[in-house]
């Protein structure tokens, strides 16, 4: 039993980092621009399909395909920002609605291009590693390590660099930041594109572990939003912790409750957190 528990725990942590990177994108975008970008899941999907395409169809070795895949997702994010979200800076509900409309467009586009048939990427890294008496696929560990590293670097980057502090100051007081010369338009676009790139990275790595279908985005963005709310919208560490908690709960829950319940945990967390501690675990409470 403990073997099973530990195994599920570790799996949960790995899935949790995937949720965490989407949550990070959600929380960054919301914190700086005030918009919840529900379309982040679609950018994750773009990253995933790009990675698959470059690696399996074009034939590039995966490590070489990874960066361009992320770049593609980021570029799409840039296009979305410049063409659409730039005009919703003042009206946040509109931004949310535009992101919802965008989901339809991107998802249907993917359906048209690649059909609903799931795509499997060829094995990037096979073999397992024994950890605490359990065999874990090497690729999973690599994904975990990479995502955790990126999340950590983002955190450090925001806390230590000039750009990061400017972003933080802006989030605290947009008016003052603008008056002090912070290029707020550039900042908002930058954060937006960065979060889509993050989602793309998550997707590209996701592709090495699971099969791809155009609907994956919808599921993951919901989990990302749940994780972000759980950890506290606006808190970077909260995004990761929220993601990990969600991932672990789902994995361990799968042992005791039917798999049909899997998606329910996140939903229940959201309701519970907003009732008990609306600021999230790392937020200011009530």
């Amino acid at each position, binding site marked *: 039993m403990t073997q099973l528990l530990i195994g599920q725990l570790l799996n949960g942590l790995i899935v949790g980092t995937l949720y965490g990177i989407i949550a990070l994108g959600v929380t960054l975008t*919301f914190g700086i621009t005030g918009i*919840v970008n529900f379309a982040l899941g679609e950018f994750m999907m773009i990253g995933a399909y790009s990675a698959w395409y470059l690696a399996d169809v074009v034939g590039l070795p995966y490590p070489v395909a990874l960066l361009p895949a992320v770049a593609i997702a980021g570029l799409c994010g840039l296009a979305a920002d410049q063409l*659409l979200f730039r*005009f*919703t800076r003042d009206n*946040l*509900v*509109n931004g*949310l*609605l*535009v992101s*919802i*409309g*965008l*989901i*339809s*467009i991107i*998802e*249907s*586009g993917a*359906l*048209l291009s690649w059909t609903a048939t799931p795509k499997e990427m060829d094995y990037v890294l096979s073999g397992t590693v024994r950890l605490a008496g359990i065999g874990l696929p090497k690729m999973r560990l690599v994904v975990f390590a990479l995502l955790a590293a990126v999340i950590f670097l983002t955190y450090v980057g925001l806390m230590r660099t000039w750009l990061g502090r400017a972003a933080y100051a802006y989030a605290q007081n947009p008016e003052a930041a603008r008056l002090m010369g912070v290029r707020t338009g550039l900042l908002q676009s930058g954060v937006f594109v960065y979060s889509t790139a993050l989602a793309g990275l998550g997707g590209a790595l996701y592709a090495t572990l699971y099969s791809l279908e155009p609907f994956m985005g*919808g599921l993951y963005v*919901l989990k990302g*939003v*749940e994780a972000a*709310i759980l950890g506290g919208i606006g808190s970077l560490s909260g995004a990761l912790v929220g993601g990990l908690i969600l991932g672990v709960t789902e994995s361990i829950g799968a042992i005791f409750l*039917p798999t*049909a*319940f899997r*998606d*329910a945990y996140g*939903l*229940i967390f*959201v*309701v519970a957190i*907003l*009732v008990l501690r*609306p600021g999230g675990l790392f937020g200011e409470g*009530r």
Partner: protein
Amino acid sequence: MIAALAAVALALVPLVVKADFVLTIFIFSFILGIAAVGFDIIFGIAGQLSMFHAASFGIAGYTTFLVMKAWALSFWLGLLPALALVVAMSVVIGSICFKFRLKAFYFAVVTLAFSELARLVVMNWTGLTNGTLGLMIMAKPVIGFGSLSRPIEGTLAWYYLTLVSLALAVVAARAVVRSWIGRACGAIRLNEDLAQTLGIDIFRYKMLAFAIANVLAALAGALFAFYTGYIDPSYLSIGQSLDIIAMVLIGGQGTVLGPVVGAFVLTGLPHLIEIGAEQRAMLIGAILIAAILLFPRGIVGSLIRLARRAV
């Protein structure tokens, strides 16, 4: 006034148009129009973005049918518990969201969470709902009593039933919107803090708008299920909620007929232009974005504005 004329015109349509295919589009537009009118009350008037209407839509369909079957009741009697259930859910969810004065985004997420939870329950409670396989609904609503009763069968009967239902929904919605309730909800949308100091009970009016919206979605859901003769968990999907949102935004939020026009546009479009399902979804998404960025007043709203300018 215009609404009355439109209603009369629509009532006369079947005399001119005989094609079943076209009348069917009208019927679906009427039904979804009811749900759209409801959504406009919580969103266009009260300014709260709710993602719960698909859940109301689907739950009412299931509940009406299951109650009818369990207790051998008529459609109308089976509808009552469905509406009551939807109201109860609205009260619970509304209490959670409105009591703590959560920001707009949280309301959307919590209603989405409950909607998805409901869909999961429906999908997995296979004993009751037959899960993803759905339920076949053979029963029909019946009008009249005893020996004078007639079941609603066939395109023409459904056309008039749904038209009358839509007309009643529009009249009711209009009455609410034009009353002190509508003014209070509008005040909440425009400036919540000010509304409070003027004595408007924000909790009560948001709750009221939310409940009304869900009841109308419920009515639409029951009619939809019984018309198509089939219901499955996809009734409660996010896509269904998004369709209704798109109808209101495209038709014109905050107007009386906007949601109805939007319902016609969204329902009729795929039939006017021969395109596949994916292209339809892309087109709707693009139109939705265009509506938000370029035509925030929607079709009806823009027409009203033009009319005012001309006068």
